[in-house]
């Protein structure tokens, strides 16, 4: 979810979308939840659900859209997100557990990964103190998990370091506990091009958010290549996509 919107965008979104959480339903529940983030498409809350710490992602209506189209679009996005999460889980890819989906308010109730930090924050703080070794392990793990995801033909669609969570596991011997979140832009595709673009999005996000991490990302890609069965075609496409970027010469 692109939360780095400029203020104008957010204001626009708020005016032209349905402001009341859950369309006015669940009054007592609403009074006990905290708004964590508001994006262009959805609001994310933290709550307690069935006694468990839960994240609720509500896709709200857009009044400027034709009502029927809006309903279909929002429904479809919700379904796609849920489907991708289930598909990942079945393949053993670490994602949050879905507790409940309310199709009337397009809300997804899922497990809150308690005691976690985003990879973004981790890299930011690590760069100041810890040695490169820790981060290398992290890069390897990310490459591994993404390879598995792409082998399942799931395209995340919004790979950034803010969408990768690190669960603080007490025992380091258990390995790095990584969780993928925010499948709002995800879809199913077997095309190497789509997977290449997925990686390209991550690369761009990585390099722009974390300076001097080119070698780290290289390690990530190496790990990806080693872990994925279909990586050759994907990396080839990635190279092609890189050439397509801004201010790039298409002469070739």
């Amino acid at each position, binding site marked *: 979810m692109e939360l780095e919107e400029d203020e104008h965008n957010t204001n626009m979104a708020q005016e032209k979308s349905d402001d009341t959480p859950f369309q006015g339903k669940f009054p*007592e529940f609403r009074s006990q939840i905290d708004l964590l983030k508001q994006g262009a498409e959805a609001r994310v809350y933290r709550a307690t659900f069935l*006694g468990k710490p839960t994240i609720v992602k509500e896709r709200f209506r857009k009044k400027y859209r034709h009502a029927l189209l809006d309903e279909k679009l929002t429904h479809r996005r919700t379904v796609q997100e849920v*489907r991708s999460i289930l598909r990942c889980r079945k393949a*053993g890819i670490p994602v949050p557990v*879905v*507790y*409940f989906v309310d199709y009337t308010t397009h809300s997804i109730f899922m*497990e809150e990964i308690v005691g976690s930090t985003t990879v973004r924050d981790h890299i930011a703080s690590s760069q100041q103190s810890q040695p490169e070794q820790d981060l290398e392990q992290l890069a390897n793990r990310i490459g591994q998990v993404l390879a598995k995801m792409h082998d399942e033909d799931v395209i995340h669609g919004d790979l950034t370091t803010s969408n990768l969570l690190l669960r603080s596991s007490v025992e380091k011997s258990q390995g790095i506990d990584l969780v993928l979140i925010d499948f709002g832009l995800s879809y199913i595709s077997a095309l190497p091009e789509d997977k290449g673009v997925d990686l390209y999005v991550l690369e761009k996000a990585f390099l722009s958010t974390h300076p001097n991490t080119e070698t780290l990302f290289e390690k990530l890609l190496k790990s990806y290549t080693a872990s994925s069965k279909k990586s050759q075609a994907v990396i080839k496409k990635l190279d092609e996509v890189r050439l397509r970027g801004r201010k790039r010469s298409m002469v070739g």
Partner: protein
Amino acid sequence: MRVEPSYPACRLCHSVIGPPFARCRERTGRGESVIIMHVTQELELYPEHSVTQMLFKDVKNAAELRQSAVDGKLNCALITPTMLVNPLQVLVAANKAVHLQKTGKMKTRGLYSEIIFNLSPTNNISEAFNRFGISDSDDSVHVTVVHSKDEFHLVSDITSRVDGQQLPLEHMSMLTDAAKVKKLYKVSPQEEKCGTLLDALICRMATKDVL
């Protein structure tokens, strides 16, 4: 090789792991210990509804109970504990059932049949009843009642109809047939690496209408 000490069998659950009642007992704020038998959870989305779960073993009248439920004379869900792993599994099913009832979108005819249907990973209603509902020969039963906060008598009304011994709900996991559960829900070994069995079940239950 270190041998674990064994304890005298707990009177309630016959477990020899830990001191008697260790798994059944919870200390209250005043330092007394009470044995937690049933567990009630209020549905945050529908606070007028609370879900109470109870567990019974050595049940002698399963056939009678099942018939009463089918006739609509016993208002509860009777589930076979072998297919249950954790109370949260039932809560997820119950929450979805109440939600669908409120929005008029239940697939079955009643709230309690809907709870049983929601437990199943497939959309086949009769299969769900066969697999998750109790059969006449069962000797252990899991009972679920949905009620409001001041209707707790409904729970005791039903408890009194069961000819069996009540177990603390926590003992649910001891009655689970994990192999059977994994087979029915089609949980692969790789999935169990990234989460618990309960996670796998809940995720499927919550998302089965998307398939």
